[in-house]
């Protein structure tokens, strides 16, 4: 699988801006790895065991150092589906403290969705759940390179985890940053904006988004997403203030950024619906 070395020892594979189908087998999100002097950490594993295996081959082709960590930024299937490919390495699987519950809750739905999208049976087991969870923050030392893992309050989901590589000044955002591909609000739009505010102060030069190019300058990488979320909140509030309903909001609230967002038609109406329900209880 093609990977880009976006900073020394930091490798990213950029997934396609498509829905999961038989041809891409869930290779639709960014994933990658970081190589220290002692060990390798994998950050997200793609949308299926086959993507995970190809990522593992890309790692083995570049380094003989052991894969000691597999970090998941959140539970969505395009980010955890390849976890099982790393079982032979016996790594610690690391995620947010709410990740186990989210994986369990999504299990049946995600298996059905994978089978419908690819026409192939999903694996019998769930995505490999974390063996180590982070409720606040945790450091991982790869040898000459320390990764700082931070668990965030509800934003894109209720279990988002970021990885900051201080030495490389690089921030793995997971789906807290979408570029190019339409974002999906599966947690809280207001919470997401607040977390982006926090992340804007992180000492990173580069961000590796959950979807988008392998890396781009930080914090500018979040600018489009921030505009989209703020526009969504403002427009839905305006519909509510005028006494409008969900149907009216879905029909009239445009996506800030418009069709420059790939696949926006698949996500925007759903986002409007979710944000409408969220904002009703402000």
């Amino acid at each position, binding site marked *: 699988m093609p990977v880009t070395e976006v900073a020394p020892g930091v490798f990213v594979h950029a997934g396609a801006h498509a829905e999961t189908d038989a041809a891409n087998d869930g290779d639709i999100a960014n994933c990658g790895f970081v190589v220290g002097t002692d060990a390798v950490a994998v950050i997200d594993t793609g949308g299926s065991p086959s993507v995970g295996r190809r990522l593992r081959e890309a790692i083995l082709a570049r380094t003989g150092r052991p894969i000691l960590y597999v970090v998941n930024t959140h539970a969505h299937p395009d980010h955890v589906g390849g976890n099982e490919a790393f079982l032979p390495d016996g790594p610690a699987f690391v995620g947010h403290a709410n990740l186990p519950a989210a994986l369990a809750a999504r299990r049946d739905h995600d298996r059905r969705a994978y089978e419908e999208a690819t026409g192939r049976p999903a694996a019998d087991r769930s995505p490999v759940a974390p063996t180590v969870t982070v409720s606040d923050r945790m450091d991982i030392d790869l040898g000459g390179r320390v990764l700082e893992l931070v668990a965030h309050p509800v934003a894109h989901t209720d279990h988002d985890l970021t990885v900051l590589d201080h030495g490389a000044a690089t921030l793995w955002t997971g789906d807290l940053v979408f570029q190019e591909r339409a974002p999906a609000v599966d947690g809280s739009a207001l919470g997401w904006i607040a977390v982006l505010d926090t992340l804007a102060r992180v000492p990173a030069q580069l961000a590796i988004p959950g979807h988008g190019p392998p890396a781009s300058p930080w914090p500018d990488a979040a600018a489009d997403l921030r505009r989209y979320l703020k526009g969504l909140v403002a427009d839905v509030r305006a519909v509510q203030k005028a*006494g409008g309903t969900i149907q009216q909001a*879905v029909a009239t609230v445009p996506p800030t950024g418009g069709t420059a967002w790939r696949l926006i038609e698949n996500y925007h109406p759903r986002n409007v619906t979710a944000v409408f329900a969220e904002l009703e209880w402000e």
Partner: protein
Amino acid sequence: MRPWHGIGLAAACAGMICLAAGGAVAGPAEETRWQVLQDLYFAGRTVEEAGPVVSLEAPTRAHDAALVPIRVATAPAPGVAVTAVHLIVDNNPVPLAMVLRFPDGTRPHAVDTRLRVDAYTNITAVAETADGRLLKTARFVKAAGGCSAPSPKNAQLAALRLGKMKLNLPETVSTGKPATAQLLISHPNYTGFQYDQLNHYYIPAHYVKTIGVRYNGEPVLDVEADISMSEDPSLHFTIVPEKEGTLEVVAEDTKGRIFKESWPIRTTPGS
């Protein structure tokens, strides 16, 4: 509000006009299912096609199967009061979602609410007139999984908020004119079909079963609901306040918890 046409047919059509024009489907499967439900809920009675007396709006494809917005409106003919509307999600495990009762059935009512849809289905509204006629209309909705969808997004917050109510009113309410109010009740409305994968059990059904709305003591709307009403129940309804006063809501859930709230309504002389 201007429709946004950038997202294709489904969203452009979410405005209600095109749904009212073409959402109904009466395929053989839907007909067969309806016969079962008619015997279940209206045994021995005749159910006629509604005509203009009751109308139903629903999205042809829902964006969230656990939160499918629908709108039902009554248009009583002179001398024919419409006293109730039964909302039925034909293919849900408990099809009867709610019964809306209108104590004053001589005036038109419009109610917006949100339903769970478990599988592609007709949603059927059956209006009942004061003289005992049953009038039905249906819309076909594509959505699936709404009864088993994991919920809520933040369980701790939902527990803290349980039973809290909100009332949204237009900025001005005119004396003697219809005004649309929105009532929100914070409640997880567990269906009994939501599986706790972590602890391996079905979360027991726990939902709001009755909602009564009074204005200055006079009944405006009574709702009997079942598991197909969405989490955090929402109702838009109309009141016609003859003078300023107090809107009171009493709701009860299946654990016998009673939630009460009241709001003052100021009216301005109508023009």
